[in-house]
């Protein structure tokens, strides 16, 4: 099996997956994933959140991460669905209330196409990390650093707390500056 672009392919087809159509309400989109190792299995956790365009530049409202779907790698079979609104750790979160605005400072210089290119690069970076984990090889340090820089730039600062809550190790390794 070719593990070259597992995450890119997962994201290309995620909206068409029947599980997503069945349980994720309209309007929720996949945010950047989190990689977790559980019981010696690699899991990719895909967070789902809402954005609301207001018609103003850099005033697209970012809402909290509400749902998480976890897929086991490399099969990409759904193994867990979480609604964070019923989890104790998120009891104080108001999911109706925006948590920040997009575009945030780090991507203000990117237009629609520029941001799409960054997003594609981040997902390709995930592909490299996942491939090395699945094949149990050492990831090229320069590629890993480039991925970290792109990911830190792309993730909205207002969502960092949610990423930390989803997986502290992933946050510390890839998102914490």
């Amino acid at each position, binding site marked *: 099996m070719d593990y070259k672009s597992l995450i890119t392919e997962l994201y290309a087809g995620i909206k068409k997956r029947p599980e997503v159509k069945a*349980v*994720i309400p309209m309007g929720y989109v996949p945010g950047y994933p989190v990689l977790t190792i559980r019981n010696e299995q690699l899991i990719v956790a895909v967070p789902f959140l809402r*954005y609301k365009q207001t018609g103003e530049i850099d005033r697209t409202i970012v809402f909290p991460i509400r749902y998480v779907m976890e897929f086991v790698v490399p099969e990409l079979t759904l193994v867990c669905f979480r609604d964070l609104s019923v989890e104790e750790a998120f009891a104080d979160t108001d999911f109706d209330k925006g948590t920040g605005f997009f575009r945030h400072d780090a991507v203000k210089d990117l237009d629609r*196409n520029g941001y799409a290119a960054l997003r594609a690069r981040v997902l390709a970076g995930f592909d490299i990390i996942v491939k090395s984990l699945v094949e149990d090889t050492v990831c090229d340090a320069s590629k890993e650093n480039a991925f970290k820089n792109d990911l830190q730039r792309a993730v909205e600062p207002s969502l960092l707390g949610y990423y930390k809550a989803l997986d502290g190790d992933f946050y510390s390794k890839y998102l914490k500056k």
Partner: protein
Amino acid sequence: MIDDLITLDTDGDGISDAIAYWDENGLNYAYDTNLDGVWDMIETYSGFDEYGNPHHFEVQCDTDANGIMDRFVAADTDYYNNTVAYSEAYDYDQDGNFDMVKEFADTTGDGTFDTVTTARFDNTGSSETMAKVDSYVDYDGDRQKDAGFHSQILDYDGDGNPDSVRFTSTDPEGNIVEETEMPFEDYLAINEMDYSTSLLAQEPLDLGQFDPDTDASMVSGDPAEDMELWEYQGNTGRCAIYAQKFAIEAITGREIPIEELVAVAEENGWFVDSPDGGTTSLNMNKLLEYYGVEHEMSFGNEMSEIEDALNDGNKVIVGVDSGQIWFGDENDIFSPETTADHAVEVIGIDRSDPANPMVVLNDSGSPDGCGELVPLDVFENAWNAGDSQMIVCYA
């Protein structure tokens, strides 16, 4: 959930003109005061005490019988059934936002209103004053103003967001006694984020409406007829409920109150009635099933399939990315990822200008969404964002 629906003939002429029913809001009476087949006044009683006396009362009226409620009255009573607060609200331009709210309150409980507050809202963005609230207090019960308290929410730079709040107090003659002003963010701890997600947030752009006099031979579907069924959803997540309502009513000829549809959808787990809830794409057809409308739901469709369905006299519901429909595809206004976040009914495709074909929508999410015109290429992009989902409802 609606319980025990009772039909009433309130004027005894042998024609049913009202219904009474219980739902989660309380005991409701819906009246068809002008016998045009539309409920134009709804009374709701709630807050019942142990003796069965309601302590809260609300009335919604459609004063011009156009299908949109535009006058709202609410009253609260105390244990002795004295009215302690009474308010009226008006949506003059029927855009789903109140333009004026007037409230009378008995703050001392002596049975006499002693405070009158009037709030006026400018939802058009045409004035520096976005909202103005005037309160007058009668301290001594002589029914004369003893003091006035006024506040204005101001948008100095005209960007549609509030910048400042000005407070003024006045004496009985209306002379200013004190005036202060503070940044909006400090006012009741409402910051820009709270504001942006509030009812006052910016409405979608008015994209223009289909002209019913357009040469019918150049138009697929029957938009002029379907436009009559359009309603505005206001600040709710009920788009899929409204889209199904439009199709069910067009096909069955039966009018169904939106609250009944919401109750059925909630009761069956097909819908969560909150801004962060809504409907999943696989549940977008459940009310059609419930009301016996023959239909077919599919994904990955082409524009020609919508057009064929309309030409066959069928009704079409789709999921679209509302950002692209309402705000276009500007390079600097976008979300990190697109998807279908909104359900609309496609009621026509207008090719009367062959160079600029337009898709005609019944879009409950915009106050100007009745027969909303969207350029075909913009629609296609917005539709593709959600896997080109289509529900064809067979006439």
